Structure formats: structure tokens, C-alpha cells
């Protein structure tokens, strides 16, 4: 599988290199998304990628598909507009944790409520990377960032429970667990309804390096040691990655009299 280069057909190879720093994890996520596309043989005509703003958001422009690079936080409503306009399209959102869970958080919450049939891949680097390294909604408690010099006073958002509320798809994975990440993305793409993959990935330059990691490989090793795979669990513990189990859909609304 590792020699398989078929996934490259989903990329604009002539635009490489990406603007990302050496050691950045975004390339791993981008590649794995393309591998998942390839595994499902997603038609290039008929698939649209949408992103918000940030380092992760820049990945949209590298897909050899129609793509839309929206305003900061607004990828989900643009993607929903596309999907509701043409249900035949596969619509995939790729963006950062600040973009999707921070500034775009309400749209995420509402898309879960609407259960729009799109897939969101979150490049979850736990930081606002593009702007230099400020605290994000999923930065761990007590972590030092540019805007939390004494450590993050808040606890990180654990958004898996939002998805449970409407029986949507949620998976957490990391850039170390490549096969797992690919499986999560494939299952998310196959899911009929709103699906979200939180892919933990390394920002070495504006995050890891300040936390004492010498290089991004050390960050990968942290993922390896810290996270355990627990697929189809009811819920994921802080140190677990996996796909959460879907419950049967509860009856829709009030019965009419």
C-alpha cells in the first residue's frame, strides 16, 4: 500500500511545494485524504473541496478538483450551500481547529443539527498556527501559547458529544496512526449524514517547538505513546482515538395530533 501513488491524481502536483513549514503535519493529512478518496475512487468531477482560513485551509488549493477557499470560519455554511444546491456532489471540508471549532463553531453546531450530508476533516493542531501560535479551542489546559503565557486557563473543547446529540459521525485520529486516519476518513466519506474527523497533527513551528519538542518527529512519537485506538466506543477518553458508535436515530420531532 505504501508504494501506491494513485492518490496523486487528486493533487495539483505542479503547484507543489505547499506553503507549509518543513516538518508540518498538514501534508500527512492532505495525503491521507487523497488516499481515502482513491480508496473510494471518488469521481474528480463530482467532488468539491471547501476550506476556511489558516495553514490547514490552504490545502484546498492543492486538490485537483473544484475547490473553494472561503472566509475564516465559513467553510461549513459554504459547503452546505453547495450540497443543498446539488445533492449529487461529494462535498468535503478541510480546515483547522480554530477555523471550524472556534470562529466557525456555531456553524458546526448547526450543521450537526441539520445533519447535512457533508464530510469535515479538521487538521487539529491545537493552535492558531497561521497567526503565530495563539490558544485554540482545543489547546490543552495549562499549555503556554502566545496569548496564554501563563498556561491555558481553560479546558479544551471535547466536541464528540455534540455529534452524539444528532447521531452524526465523529472520529478522532492522529498523524502517527496513518492507517487509522485513512480508515476514519473513508468511513466518514461513506457516512450518510454529517461526518467529522478530528485529525491531530503537528505544528512544529508555532506550537511544538515552544513546548520543548525538538522536531516534529518527537511530536509524532508523543501521539504514538499517548493515544490508544478504541474504535466504536460509546465515547472517547482524553487519550483515546477512534470512531464513536452511532446510536439509532431518536424519533424525529413531535408526533402530529
Amino acid at each position: 500500500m505504501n508504494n501506491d501513488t494513485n492518490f496523486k491524481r487528486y493533487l495539483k502536483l505542479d503547484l507543489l511545494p505547499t506553503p507549509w513549514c518543513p516538518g508540518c503535519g498538514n501534508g500527512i493529512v492532505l495525503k491521507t485524504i487523497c488516499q481515502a478518496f482513491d480508496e473510494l475512487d471518488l469521481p474528480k468531477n463530482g467532488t468539491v473541496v471547501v476550506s476556511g482560513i489558516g495553514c490547514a485551509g490552504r490545502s484546498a488549493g492543492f486538490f485537483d478538483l473544484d475547490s473553494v477557499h472561503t472566509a475564516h470560519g465559513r467553510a461549513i455554511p459554504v459547503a452546505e450551500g453547495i450540497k443543498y444546491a446539488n445533492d449529487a456532489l461529494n462535498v468535503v471540508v478541510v480546515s483547522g481547529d480554530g477555523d471550524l471549532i472556534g470562529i466557525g463553531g456555531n456553524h458546526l453546531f448547526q450543521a450537526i443539527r441539520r445533519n447535512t450530508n457533508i464530510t469535515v476533516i479538521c487538521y487539529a493542531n491545537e493552535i492558531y498556527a497561521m497567526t503565530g501560535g495563539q490558544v485554540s479551542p482545543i489547546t490543552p489546559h495549562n499549555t503556554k501559547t502566545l496569548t496564554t503565557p501563563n498556561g491555558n486557563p481553560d479546558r479544551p473543547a471535547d466536541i464528540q458529544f455534540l455529534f452524539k446529540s444528532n447521531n452524526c459521525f465523529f472520529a478522532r485520529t492522529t498523524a502517527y496512526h496513518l492507517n487509522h486516519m485513512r480508515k476514519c476518513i473513508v468511513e466518514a466519506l461513506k457516512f450518510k449524514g454529517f461526518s467529522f474527523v478530528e485529525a491531530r497533527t503537528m505544528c512544529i513551528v508555532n506550537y511544538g517547538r515552544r513546548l520543548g519538542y525538538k522536531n516534529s518527529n518527537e511530536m509524532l512519537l508523543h501521539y504514538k505513546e499517548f493515544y490508544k485506538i478504541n474504535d466504536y466506543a460509546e465515547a472517547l477518553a482524553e487519550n483515546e482515538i477512534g470512531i464513536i458508535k452511532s446510536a439509532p436515530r431518536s424519533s424525529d420531532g413531535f408526533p402530529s395530533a
Partner: protein
Amino acid sequence: MTKQLFQGNQAITMAAEVAGLKFFAGYPITPASEIIHELVNKKHIKVLQMEDEIASINAIIGASLAGLKAMTATSGPGFSLMQESIGLAHMMEVPLVIVNVQRVGPSTGMPTLPAQGDVIQCIHGSHGDYFPIVFYPNSVSELYKYTIMAFNAAEESLSPVILLSDGFISHLYETIIPDRNFDIKNRTRPPLGAGNRHFTGLSHEDSVPKTSDVDNYRRLITRLHEKQQLTAQRYNYYEYLECSKDTDTLLISYGALSRIAYYFKNDFALYRPIRLFPIVEEIKIIASRYKRILIMEMNTGQYAHEIERILHREVEFIPILGGCIDLNEIKQKLYEQRY
């Protein structure tokens, strides 16, 4: 076709349907809500009530890129929320129609009363330089006609076109003939899912972001500006009424307030821009015939400054604030100004 009685907001929805509207996303707000109420009952139009106006504008951007003619409708507070993505739509060249039924601001102001306080926001509300086409009708039949013009101009310019209204004309009932014989402009660009284009708010050239190429940015903005000017020339709408008496004064007004200006047509020449922006060039020639230019508007001089700028001369200004259009008050102000 026979005359029928319609509300202003209702006329907008009927015209939008004729113009080919297929997708609407919006958020409730007075005095624009009747538009979504009407549209949900139309069979071939997808209507979404979104979580806010930011989601609304972004959903119609997506739908428009996916190939459907798309519209949203709001009032000042929602129009403020949409501003960032209006800039995005200009940069990505997305045809849209945005209806702003103005009410008294700033902030929540006086929600049920009409105003004209969002005139400058139409052209400078988003950051950076962009060149929107803005129409502002003054009757129910004109709301009908210029909704169709707004859709056509959006398709021709590949840009978001603003249709201004106000709480007065949008809530007015008048008899109109809902004519369906308009030349309708169709989409020229293939919908999403047909290629490998990249639509981005970053400065770009042929689908490739160019984040620090100064010359490319200058070319891009010049091209967008010229495109807007060229399209606007095909929508040169204004009303000019010469005075039966000899007068040295041209009275300028638009939208709801211009309806009361007709009362003074025997004392002043009247000018009413319908395409508010880009400013109709003819105003220069018309204004040159008059010694005095008098502008009244329901704000503190937003269009007056624009007119001064384009005419390179001073104009007299009468603000009519607070959502109240009272003939006696206006009479007094107009004639007071004279002496």
C-alpha cells in the same frame, strides 16, 4: 395582464422567481421577513433559514458556485454581519442578489421604521476596494422590475448586487402588473464539480493564489473595477423631471423619500438615482444646469457627500431622520433652506 395588489416584499419574491431564483438562505429580521415567508411556499426554490446572516450569505455563495441563482434578504444588522463575505463574493466573482430592507440604525435602532442609513455601507462595508452595483427603487412596481435587473446585473458582472429597499416601500401595498416578459440573463460559468478551479478570497490569477505579487494584485483589482463599470453602464437607471417653472434648483432624493419629492415638482427640478452605485454619470450634465443642488435623504448626508465628490461642488443637504416622512416638516425645511 391585469393589475393586482401586492406588498413590496412580495413583489421582490415574485420578481426573483421570474429572474430564475433557485436558492434562498436567510435569517428573520424586520422589515425583511416577509421575503422568506413568501419564498418557503414556492415549489422550485430551495429555502434555508440559517443560524445567522453570516451563514446565510455563505450558503448562497456556495449555492451560486454550485450553479443556482441565489439570493438573501435582510436589514441593517444582518447586512453588517454579511460584510466580510460580500468582499469574498467580489473576490471570487460570485453572482448573488442581496436585498437590504433598511430600518433605523445604528444598532437595533428603531426596527419597524424606515431609514436610508446603509447607503455607504453598500460600497464600503467590507474591507478593501470593491465596486458593487446597487439599485434602490421607490415603489412596489419598481421593486419588481429592479429585482429582475439585480439578478441580471449579477449574472453579467459575476458579482453580488445589492437591492436596497426600506421599511416603507417594502411594506407598501400597490397595484402592479407582474410582467413576465423580461430578458433574463443566464449563468455563464459551469457549476462546481466540473473541473479543477480554485475559488479563493486570496489575491489570485487563474485559480492560483498569489499572496505577495503586487503587479498581479493591481491587475486583478483593475480588471474587477472595469468589469463592474462596464456592466453598470447597461443599467443606467435614474429619473429626471424638469420643472414646468423656471427654477435654479435641482432636488435630489431616492427610495421612500423620493415619493414625497414629487409633491414639489412645480417648484424644483427633480433627480432620483435608481442605480445608486456606481453613480450614474448623467448627474454631472443634469446638475450643470442648476445653480443650487439640494439633497434630502434619511441619513446624515451619505449620498450628499458622494454627489459632492463627483460634481466637485458644494450641495445643500436636508437630513430627514428618525424614520418619519412628514410633508409639513419637509415643506418647511425645503422652503426655509431657500431664504
